[in-house]
């Protein structure tokens, strides 16, 4: 039972129904990250998919950019409570990147340049739900927003959409990533308001 704050009425947005619980709209694009922004030159960039000690897929920037792309328009929900609707991206679907990969793995740990990581069930990366995005709103993705390329998994809180993505490790057992180990929710569904461990 919430305690009433004497004299508080709040400022309600007319579009609340399109927002997950506890979120509010922003027109800006706030930045949240745990360390300095890595600046990764394209000629040194690579993306790998690994299982155990094996690298089962590897792309450099040229081979990555020769893959077919998609242009999803999605809503973003950050655990710090801002949401941004109708954002336009271009990226390569994880369905494309994982096509033909035979695995028993049920989980993925996604690593960034700069040692950030986040975990999610493998099925959340599949079926047109996730991309490695490299353009935002018609322009190359800025480093502070995760460029050259970031994971985009818009149906989960935005910390799951790892910036500066570098490798995706497939695993049979789940293991917490960076924020997950610091008490944030393991799954992070904004519509069930899974912000912190125990939600």
């Amino acid at each position, binding site marked *: 039972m*919430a*305690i*009433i*704050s*004497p*004299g*508080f*009425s*709040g*400022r*309600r947005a007319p579009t609340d129904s399109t927002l997950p619980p*506890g979120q*509010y709209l*922003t027109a*800006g*694009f*706030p*930045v*949240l*990250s*745990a*360390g*300095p*922004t*890595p600046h990764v030159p394209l000629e040194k960039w690579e993306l790998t998919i690994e299982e155990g000690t094996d690298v089962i897929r590897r792309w450099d920037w040229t081979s990555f950019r020769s893959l077919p792309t998609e242009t999803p328009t999605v809503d973003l929900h*950050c655990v*710090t*409570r*801002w949401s941004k609707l109708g954002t336009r991206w271009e990226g390569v679907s994880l369905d494309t990147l994982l096509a033909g990969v035979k695995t028993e793995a049920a989980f993925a740990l996604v690593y960034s340049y*700069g*040692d950030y990581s986040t975990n999610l069930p493998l099925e959340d990366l599949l079926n047109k739900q996730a991309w490695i995005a490299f353009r935002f709103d018609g322009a190359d993705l800025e480093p*502070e927003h995760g460029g050259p390329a970031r994971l985009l998994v818009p149906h989960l809180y935005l910390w799951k959409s790892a910036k500066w993505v570098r490798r995706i490790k497939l695993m049979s057992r789940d293991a917490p990533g*960076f*924020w997950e*180990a*610091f*008490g944030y929710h393991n799954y992070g569904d904004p519509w069930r308001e899974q912000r*912190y461990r*125990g939600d």
Partner: protein
Amino acid sequence: MWRSGTVIALRDETATARTITLQIPDWPGHLAGQHVDVRLTAPDGYSAVRSYSIASAPDQDGRIEITVERLPDGEVSPYLTTQVAVGDPLELRGPIGGWFVWRPEQPEPIQLVAGGSGIVPLMAMIRLRRATHGGAPFRLLYSVREPDAVWYGGELQLPSSDSSVSVTYAYTRAVPEGWPRRPARIDAAQIASMTWPSRLRPTCYVCGPTSFVERAADLLAAAGNSPDRIRTERFGPTGERR
């Protein structure tokens, strides 16, 4: 789990910023640098939540302080800076966050870099450091618009006996009379002269608005600090923190 705290003191830091002291009966304790979520609820059940860094050092008394800056178009900060009164209940959740924290057992020198209201979690670290005997030295580089915008100014003034924390200011819009530098954004020369040399391998904590943190963290890295020793906390133009 939402906890109910009681406002036990209010103190203005500047014309637009207020420190709120809360007494929380079942407070589990916190680490210097962590934050809380504060929830306001209207009579019809509508609620709004914002995150605020804890400004106070951990103590045994179930008391915490937060400092809130009033944002002109804010939903929560105007209430917290103008309407809340001593004796009012406030709901909060936390402590939250385990990365942007300082622990007294850390042996390395500590470099704090604050932009504006980004001073708050760093103040918790400074207060804890000053309450701890021995331990590694701190430096704080505090970037503010103008002298009147300094938070915790009196407390940051060093007693001459205390060499544990040294404080330098950088002014971006107006400087005190006789200040040797013109107002400007922080630059490489300031980072070189006012922060620990990178060869001492300090851990750096940088907190402030996004653009400030981007700049300061880049400058610290360019000065030779390893990116894995630079911890950042940013808040954007929408005020999703503070």
